[in-house]
């Protein structure tokens, strides 16, 4: 028996529509199959169907899923409970919500063992500790009694993996296990999965949207689009010779080569400069703050941004990069000097700063949280204009101005009367961009504007930002955690670590000749597509 898991002609439906149609693939023993696709492609549903954990209202109409020649659809719920955990393990995207916050992590893993295996009580703890050791959790003895909130995101994901491996399953389903993690942590988790696969002869079904991750971990790739499998192939064949246009598009978008940046010869004038910016947060203690704790979110950084250029501010979560954005907009109290053009805007009161607000604007990460659900798009766009007195006052001229804005971000003019919930993530992000553009700013701070979007939508948004920059000469401060993105979007890059900038310079220099060890670690951790992808020109 060579196949650990076979999915045959799986079709999933709700009452109204077919979500997954005729999906077939096989998972060999000791092999990693990557299930790749954009959001809504049905990859997660396929995984849930294997676990027989489909959400209410979704049911399989045809097809079969076999675990070593036993059909999972024939099993009762009771038998299925034995399969889950014992034969098939699963890890999720959000380790924070998958662990129970009030039970210590060791007990949570031990519980799995107790349910499925008849192991003497005394041995269970030893087994859990050896599992923690296997997933490279530091000091496994001590970690046994820790609670989830005491662990970092990567460590929590390791606990989840330990839990999934506890009963020595044959198949591990990993649903975007590294998407919520920082790059360096992602690299460690991927390496761990790779090691476990080899030592345990484990079959892994790895669900992801990231082609670079696929190239690192998978042996075989199944590409899904809108509920259909469009292509499946061994990994090196697929990357060398993708046949389906969607696969090509995915690879093309992932390579990030679509945007060519022209190199500026002469130095453009500076629009924004920051000197020794510090943001300290004081934690209020009990009752009128007897004891104060100080968190140094940003600890003395210098930045310079030139007209028409993009400065990428790169760092892992918690490095303080979003706090820099808030300080630049004077939304948090800070120390240090900020110059907009030649005017010193730090130390101004809110009233004195208001006229300068229109010159510096922001685009947000989460397109679902950045638009007020109770306002029409037209009102959202108008808000800043009315508050800061930009654009025409007269109603008709204003309407024309708003229509022009939507045209600029490539949206139909009819959207003005509609509400945000009617739009997709990409469209919402365009509205967010239009809102910032409405004020004709000199600087736009982009706070991870693409990290919540699908790969294909991401490249469209990046292309749009680029076009706007060429047309208007606006400067971007582009905050991101994704180093792979930097060469295609930025002229200059600053790497931030624990509130300080460790390295800063032209993109080419920093990306290819990094001088600081942290930059090198970051660069090494970025999952890369095989080199030949970058060599090919005519995809």
């Amino acid at each position, binding site marked *: 028996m060579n196949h650990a898991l076979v999915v045959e002609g799986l079709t999933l439906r709700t009452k109204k529509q077919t979500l997954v149609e005729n999906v077939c693939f096989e998972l060999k023993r000791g092999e990693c199959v990557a299930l790749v696709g954009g959001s809504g492609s049905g990859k997660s549903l396929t995984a849930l169907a294997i676990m027989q954990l489909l959400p209410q209202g979704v049911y399989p109409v045809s097809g079969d899923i076999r675990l070593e020649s036993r059909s999972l659809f024939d099993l009762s719920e009771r038998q299925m409970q034995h399969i889950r955990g014992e034969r098939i393990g699963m890890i999720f995207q959000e380790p924070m919500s998958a662990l129970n916050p009030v039970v210590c992590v060791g007990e949570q893993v031990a519980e799995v063992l107790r349910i499925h295996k008849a192991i003497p009580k005394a041995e269970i703890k030893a087994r859990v500790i050896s599992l923690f050791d296997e997933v490279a959790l530091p000091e496994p003895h001590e970690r046994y009694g820790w609670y989830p909130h005491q662990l970092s995101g990567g460590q929590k994901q390791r606990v989840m993996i330990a839990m999934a491996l506890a009963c020595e399953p044959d198949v591990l389903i990993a649903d975007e296990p590294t998407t919520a993690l920082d790059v360096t942590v992602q690299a460690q988790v991927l390496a761990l999965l790779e090691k476990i696969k080899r030592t345990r002869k484990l079959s892994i079904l790895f669900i992801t949207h990231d082609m670079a991750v696929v190239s690192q971990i998978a042996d075989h790739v199944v590409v899904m689009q809108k509920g259909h499998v469009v292509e499946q192939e061994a990994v090196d064949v697929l990357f060398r010779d993708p046949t389906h246009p969607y696969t090509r598009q995915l690879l093309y978008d992932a390579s990030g080569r679509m945007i060519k940046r022209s190199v500026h010869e002469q130095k453009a004038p500076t629009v924004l400069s920051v000197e020794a910016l510090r943001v300290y947060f004081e934690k209020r203690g009990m009752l009128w703050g007897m004891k104060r704790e100080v968190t140094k979110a940003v600890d003395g950084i210098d930045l310079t941004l030139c007209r028409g250029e993009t400065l990428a501010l790169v760092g892992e979560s918690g490095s303080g990069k979003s706090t820099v954005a808030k300080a630049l907009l004077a939304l948090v109290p800070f120390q240090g000097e900020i110059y907009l053009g030649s005017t010193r805007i730090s130390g101004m009161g809110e009233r004195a700063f208001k006229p300068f607000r229109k010159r510096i604007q922001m685009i*947000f990460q989460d397109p679902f949280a950045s638009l007020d659900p109770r306002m029409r798009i037209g009102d959202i766009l108008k808000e800043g204009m009315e*508050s800061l007195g930009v654009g025409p006052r007269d109603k008709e001229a204003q309407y024309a101005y708003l229509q022009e804005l939507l045209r600029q971000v490539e949206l139909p003019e009819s959207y003005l009367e509609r509400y945000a919930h009617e739009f997709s993530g990409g469209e919402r992000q365009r509205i967010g961009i239009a809102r910032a553009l409405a004020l004709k700013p000199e600087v736009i701070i982009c706070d991870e504007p693409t990290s919540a979007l699908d790969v294909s939508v991401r490249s469209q948004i990046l292309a749009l930002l680029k076009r706007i920059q060429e047309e208007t000469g606006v400067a971007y401060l582009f905050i991101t955690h994704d180093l792979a993105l930097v060469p295609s979007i930025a002229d200059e890059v600053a790497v931030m670590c624990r509130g300080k900038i460790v390295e800063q310079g032209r993109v080419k220099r920093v990306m290819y000749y990094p001088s600081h060890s942290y930059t090198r670690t970051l660069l090494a951790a970025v999952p890369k597509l095989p080199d030949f992808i970058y060599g090919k020109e005519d995809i």
Partner: protein
Amino acid sequence: MSLHLLLTDILLWSLMIGGMAWGVYMRKAKAGLEAWRDIFRSPVAMVSAVILLFYLAFALLDSVHFKVNDPHRSDSGSVISLLDMAMQHRRTFSERTYSAPFATQEYTRSVVVDKKGVTHQSFLPLKHVSPEGFWQKSMWGMGVGIALALLLIFLHRRWLRGGHERGEPLPWRSAYMTFAILTVLFSWLYVMSFSFHVLGTDKVGGDLFYASLKSIRTGMLIGTLTTLVTLPLALVLGVSAGYFRGWVDDLIQYLYTTLSSIPGVLLIAAGVLTMQVMMDQHPDWFATTVERADIRLLFLVVILGVTSWTGLCRMLRAETLRISQMDYVTAAKAFGVNSWQIMWRHIVPNLTHIILISIVLDFSGLVLAEAVLSYVGVGVDPTMYSWGNMINQARLEMARDPMVWWSLFSAFIFMFVLVLAANLFSDRVQHVLDPRNVS
């Protein structure tokens, strides 16, 4: 007769007009309209809404008061409402004592001395009852009810066909059924009330059907007007606490924690007793007993409101804390929009679902609270008709033998139907409007 609106009349009507204006305004917002249609898509909600509207109609009918100026009338100088006029036959003439529903004679024997001078005990006949022709009258009452219901349903259908029906059809059938049943039932009861005491009479011979109908206004007033007091308090304090944080938050939190740690009934009793002393010292403030009872009701509403805003305030504060962290609020700050405008344009509109849910949820609680408070003796004026007062009087009637069950029964049925309808409706409102329930 001249129009003589009481303070609570004005408040109730302005609340109605305000509600309607808000409804018209909401028609423009497509998302809001869709949510409301979604609420009524459930037959249970539709039935409950029809029942609530029925109650509301009685309350509104009872909230248009006139002063009788005609010196020839026995009740000259008193203040009566439209409902009183319709029930004139049961308002002014009362029996001597208890009588069961549809009875023709009194419930207890009385000592009678007949013409010959012999005393004996017998059940005296009721004075204002005409038992002949029971079936004809019943047929007539129900016939009128059916005709009226059919006419109104027919008119409504015509109106719908005239292009007012949009999107998925609503469960109108359930609404029509409920409406028809209620109309037939009440028109029968009304016609019969001319010849009988349909729900019996109380200790002093007052008609209980009339008392129950009059109590509707009291219950509805307390349920709706109290929100007028709680809502501004809870909204202003909750949103300021959540938005400004720091010492403002500390202060407001301190205020509502203190307030909510004092037992509610104690606070209300203290408030009501203080107010009563004040009213006793100034008898010249009120021209009639109706006005006096009305002012007392208003005071009760204010006291209930002031003591019951803390729950909603806490919820609004928590939600404001969450919303003020949203990126769209950050964006508004980056536009230099001032705090008041951010609160008004971004925070309050996003709190509407919580406000609506809590208004409809609190309604039934307040109706019940009135009953409990009147039972304890710190509720509405004893001269005012209310379910709480009816239950309070029924306390002793349940203990006597033979038992008088009908006054408790009528208060219970009227209150039960109202509270049940309100609860079922609020369940649906919560289900539809609470974003956590979106599947």
